[in-house]
């Protein structure tokens, strides 16, 4: 459903993404691992359309989306969660959900229930970070996406909160395709059908989770 071919992205003379190709099938749950600076977030930004590749093409459901704006891709079915929560901080939880649902057609109450959000009339500026995280995920889900991109969806919250977020992700419908960046290996293995490891702008491993363990040992133990 998602196909990337020969992507290059440079930044100040350095190749952040270097000749990267990747195919993700419908319903697959791909977790991307790799050291800091490997280009994981850049890859997500390329898929979401926040940056444009210097070379290469991106297809979503056999339709080329290279060059399309973020908004166009969002309407084509790409949902996006952010590494640092990206919310409308001047509004309440309900207003955030309302905006997202107006774009995507889901009901505010259903979405809030799915993401475990309560007391919706609180201003976003006043909620704890775990709630902000769940709202960020809810906003990504509001448009009924077919492809969900998540960038360390549980970063910055304690282990308990992280487990909740991951339970939430695990409970997503099976036909929703996931591309998730995750630092925490346990959490990564809890979600993944398939793991890709990135290093210096390239994919160095791509395969089933159990096969990834030796490759990961090499990266994380040294």
């Amino acid at each position: 459903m998602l196909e990337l071919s020969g992507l290059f992205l440079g930044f100040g003379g350095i190749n952040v993404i270097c000749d990267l190709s990747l195919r993700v099938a419908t319903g697959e749950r791909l977790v991307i691992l790799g050291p800091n600076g490997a280009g994981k977030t850049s890859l997500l930004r390329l898929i979401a359309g926040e940056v444009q590749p210097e070379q290469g093409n991106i297809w979503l459901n056999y339709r080329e989306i290279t060059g399309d704006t973020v908004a166009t891709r969002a309407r084509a079915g790409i949902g996006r969660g952010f590494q640092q929560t990206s919310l409308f901080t001047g509004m309440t939880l309900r207003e955030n959900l309302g905006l997202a649902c107006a774009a995507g057609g889901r009901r505010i109450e259903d979405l809030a229930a799915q993401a475990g959000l309560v007391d919706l009339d609180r201003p976003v500026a006043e909620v704890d970070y775990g709630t902000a995280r769940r709202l960020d995920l809810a906003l990504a889900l509001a448009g009924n996406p077919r492809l969900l991109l998540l960038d360390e969806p549980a970063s910055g919250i304690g282990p308990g909160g992280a487990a909740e977020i991951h339970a939430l992700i695990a409970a997503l419908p099976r036909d929703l395709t996931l591309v998730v960046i995750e630092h925490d290996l346990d959490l990564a293995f809890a979600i993944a059908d398939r793991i890709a490891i990135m290093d210096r702008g390239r994919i160095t491993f791509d395969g089933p989770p159990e096969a990834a363990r030796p490759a990961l040992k090499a990266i994380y133990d040294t």
Partner: protein
Amino acid sequence: MFRLTTIRAATAALVLIALAAWSVHGDYLAREITAEIAILAILVLALDLVAGFGGMVSLAHGAIMGVGAYGYALANLAGLPPWPAALVGIVASTATGGVIGAISARLTGVFFLMVTLAFGQMIWALTFRADALGGDNGLGGIARPALPFVDSNDPLVFALYALLMLLACLLLCVAVLRSPFGHRFQAVHDNPARAAALGFAPERIRAQGFAISSMLAGVAGVLAAQHMQFVSPELMVWTASGEVLVVLILGGIGSVTGAMVGAAGYLLLKHWAAGWTDHWHLAVGLLLIAVVLAGGRGLSGLLERRRDA
């Protein structure tokens, strides 16, 4: 995110009632000043809509208002009755703002400010040079609208008519901000990256917001042409837009009611100070800096501070 708090609604109602009462009981000057305040307040309201809620600080609003004023004047002088001519003026302003917005929407902050300055000055320079528009001398002999039962040439009637228009623009502004479009407009300002990820096209929404604001500026322009029965390029020069921005800042940006408080306070101060000093801009400069240093919430912010905390 705009909220019509009780204190805001009360402030708006109070200003409107006080001005109406003042023009009913006051003299000729009170009525003229009331009309002036109402017109300025509509223009400041238009600027607040884009600057306060969309982060698009424009220095073209004087010029956009001027387009409305000239549109009305030209249509009226060409033989169109006042009401259709007013429509011409408002449509001209909306279209002008729509074009400026569409071209400039990808710029933000001071770059947006400067590009609107450039567009405003282009309009001003064109008008200033065009013989068909009266050039430097402007155009005179413009009619006031025909109203049922009353004569709009009566200063009291015109003052109340202008206040009624202000009320209409105020309600329109609140309705826009509370509409789904208004929410998207504010969302794009609050968090452009997330708004795009939700599928909103930020540039189109910003351009549409600018066009709506320009429509309000057009209403102010038509009213100004009707009030003075004369238009000149002075309406359009960038310092006129700068003054509107100053009034908005003094009144309180991003509160809707700040526009009314600012316009009333500014013009009352101006007319009061004009009686005994030539240097009242000194006070305006000092006030402006004081407001910026205090966090930029203006007079209405001062009123709301206790409530908000």
